[in-house]
C-alpha cells in the first residue's frame, strides 16, 4: 500500500525536477556539445575563397600547428603558473591559520573578527579589485611610488614587467581566496571527533604530532574538495588578469599574463566563423585539461581508509 502510494506521488517528483533539467539542457549541456561540434568546423581562408570543412582542422592548425603560433599552450602555461603561484601559498597559510584558530591550547581571542576581515576581499567584485590593484600599481600608483622611493623598482614601474605582473596577479588571487579556504578548513577541523585529540593528549602527543597524525589525514576529503574546486576555478581565471593588465606587456612576442579564457573571449567576440572555430577548439583544450587535472587530484587525494569520522 505505502509503496504504491509513493509511486503514485512519484510523478510529482519527476515533474518538479523537469524545469531544472530543461534549463540545464538548453543553457549548459547544449552549449557544451555545440562547442565540441563547433571546434570541428574548420574555416580556411584562401584569398577570397572561404572553405569550410568538418574535421580536426582547428586542432591541426591552431592548437598543434603554426597558425595559432602556439598561443594556446603559452596561455595554458601562464594560467597554470598563475594558479600554482596562488594556490600553494594559499593552502599553506590557510592550513596554518585553521590550525591556530582551532587550537585548544593557545586560544586566540577574536578569531571571529579575523575570519570576517580575511574573508572580506572574496565577496568584492573581482573586476573592481582588479582595477583597484591596477590603480595602486600604475606608474603613478601609491604602491609604485613607495617601491620607487625604496629603489625596488625602476622609473617605469611594475606593469611593464611580465614577471612582476604575474606575481601581482597571483597575489591578488591569493589575497582574495585564502580567507575562504581557511574558513572551509576550520570547519573541517572542527568536524573531527574531539576524543581523538583528547586521547592523543593523554598519550603525550605534541601539537605538531596531533596536526600531522590526526588533523591532516582526516582533513583529506576537504583538502580534496578545496583542491579540485580551486583548480576548476583557477583554470577559468579571467577577471583579474584581464582587467589588471590587459594581458600583460609583450615579452619575447608573447603577452605575459594572457590566460586561456582571455584568448577564448578574444576570438568569440570577433565572431567570424573562422574565429569561432578557433575559440571552440581552445575551449575544448581547456575543458580536457581541466578534467584531467581534476581527476588526477581526485585520485591522488583519494581516501582509502575511512575511519575516525
Amino acid at each position, binding site marked *: 500500500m505505502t509503496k504504491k502510494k509513493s509511486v503514485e506521488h512519484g510523478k510529482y517528483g519527476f515533474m518538479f525536477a523537469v524545469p531544472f533539467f530543461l534549463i540545464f539542457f538548453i543553457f549548459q549541456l547544449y552549449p557544451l556539445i555545440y562547442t565540441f561540434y*563547433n571546434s570541428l568546423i574548420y574555416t580556411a581562408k584562401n584569398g577570397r575563397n572561404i572553405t569550410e570543412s568538418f574535421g580536426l582542422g582547428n586542432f591541426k592548425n591552431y592548437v598543434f600547428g603554426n597558425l595559432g603560433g602556439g598561443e594556446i599552450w603559452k596561455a595554458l602555461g601562464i594560467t597554470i603558473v598563475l594558479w600554482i603561484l596562488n594556490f600553494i601559498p594559499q593552502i599553506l597559510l590557510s592550513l596554518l591559520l585553521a590550525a591556530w584558530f582551532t587550537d585548544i591550547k593557545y586560544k586566540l581571542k577574536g578569531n571571529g573578527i579575523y575570519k570576517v576581515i580575511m*574573508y572580506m576581499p572574496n565577496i568584492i*567584485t573581482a573586476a573592481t579589485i582588479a582595477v583597484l590593484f591596477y*590603480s595602486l600599481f600604475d606608474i603613478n600608483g601609491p604602491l609604485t611610488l613607495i617601491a620607487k622611493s625604496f629603489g625596488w623598482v625602476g622609473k617605469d614601474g611594475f606593469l611593464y614587467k611580465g614577471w612582476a605582473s604575474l606575481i601581482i596577479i597571483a597575489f591578488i588571487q591569493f589575497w582574495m581566496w585564502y580567507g575562504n579556504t581557511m574558513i572551509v578548513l576550520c570547519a573541517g577541523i572542527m568536524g573531527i571527533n574531539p576524543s581523538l585529540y583528547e586521547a592523543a593528549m593523554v598519550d603525550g602527543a605534541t601539537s605538531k604530532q596531533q596536526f600531522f597524525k590526526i588533523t591532516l589525514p582526516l582533513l583529506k576529503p*576537504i583538502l580534496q574538495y578545496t583542491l579540485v574546486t580551486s583548480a576548476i576555478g583557477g583554470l577559468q581565471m579571467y577577471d583579474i588578469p584581464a582587467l589588471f593588465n590587459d594581458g600583460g606587456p609583450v615579452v619575447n612576442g608573447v603577452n605575459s599574463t594572457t590566460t586561456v579564457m582571455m584568448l577564448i573571449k578574444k576570438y568569440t567576440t570577433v565572431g567570424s566563423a573562422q574565429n569561432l572555430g578557433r575559440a571552440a577548439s581552445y575551449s575544448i583544450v581547456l575543458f580536457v585539461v581541466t578534467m584531467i587535472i581534476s581527476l588526477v587530484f581526485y585520485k591522488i587525494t583519494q581516501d582509502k581508509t575511512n575511519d575516525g569520522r
Partner: protein
Amino acid sequence: MDQEVKGYSTVKLVRYIVCILLCFISIFPFFILIINSTLPSSKIVTGIKLLPGSNFMTNFKNLIEAGNKTSGVNVMQAMWHSLLITVPATILQIYFGSLTAYAVTAYKFKGRNFMWGFIYAIMMIPTQVSVVGFIKVCNLTHLYGTYWPLIIPAIAAPTTVYFMKQYMETGLSLEIIEAARIDGSKEFYTFNKIVLPLLKPAMATQAIFGFVASWNNLYIPSLVLGTERKEMTMPMFVAALKANDKERDWGQIYCGLFVTVLPLLVMYFILSKYIIAGVALGGVKE
C-alpha cells in the same frame, strides 16, 4: 613552569601579530580606495595620503558626467542594470534549486537516483568554457543582447540543489508532508506553503551567495551584452572605467570603484555572521 608560561605567551604573541598583519593587508587596499575617492587626481599621483579630502562630490559628479558622455551609462544606471539581472536570477535560483532538491529528496520515482547522481556530477563541469555554444543558444532563441540569458540559467544551479538537499535531509521531516497529504493538501501547494518556509535559513544562505556571484559576474554578461553598451552591468562599467581616457582622472576612477564596493561592504558587514557560516557549510561536503 616559568619558562613554559613564557613560551606560551610568545607563541600567542607571534600568532596575534601574524593575524593582525594579515587583517591589515586585507583592509589596506580598501582604505586607500576610500581615501583616494575623496581626493583630486593631482593629489593622488603624488603618493599615499592617510587623510580624506573634500573632493568626493566633485569626483562623483565627474564620474556621472563622464559615464553619460562616453557610453551613455553612468555608474548608478550600471548598478541598476545589475540589480535587474541579479534579483530575478537569485529568486529563480533558490526557488528552483529548492524545488529540484525537494523532488529528489521527498519522492520516489524511476530515475531518481540517476537524476541525483547527474546533478552531483555536473557540479564539477567548468561552465564558462562553453561560451561559444552559449552565444549560439542566445542567437537561436533571439535572446542575444538581452538580460534573459543571464537570468534564466539560474534555474539550473547544481550547487544550490546540492546545498538544499543536504539541508532537507536533516532539517525536513517527511511526516509533515505526509500529514499535509492526509489533510488533502495538493503536492505543489504543500511545497510552496509548508516546505519552503521550513527552508528559510538554507535559502537565505544560498540567496546571499547566488546574489554575490551574479552581481560580480563579468565574463558571460560582457559576451552576451557585448555590443549593447547601453545595457552595461556594474562589472562591465568598472572594466570600462579603466579604459576610458588617456588622461586619467584618478579621483573619478577611485570614486567609481568606491561606489561599486560600498553596497557589497555594507551588506557584508550586516550579514557576515551568516556568510562565514555559509562558507563553512559549503565546504563540509562529505
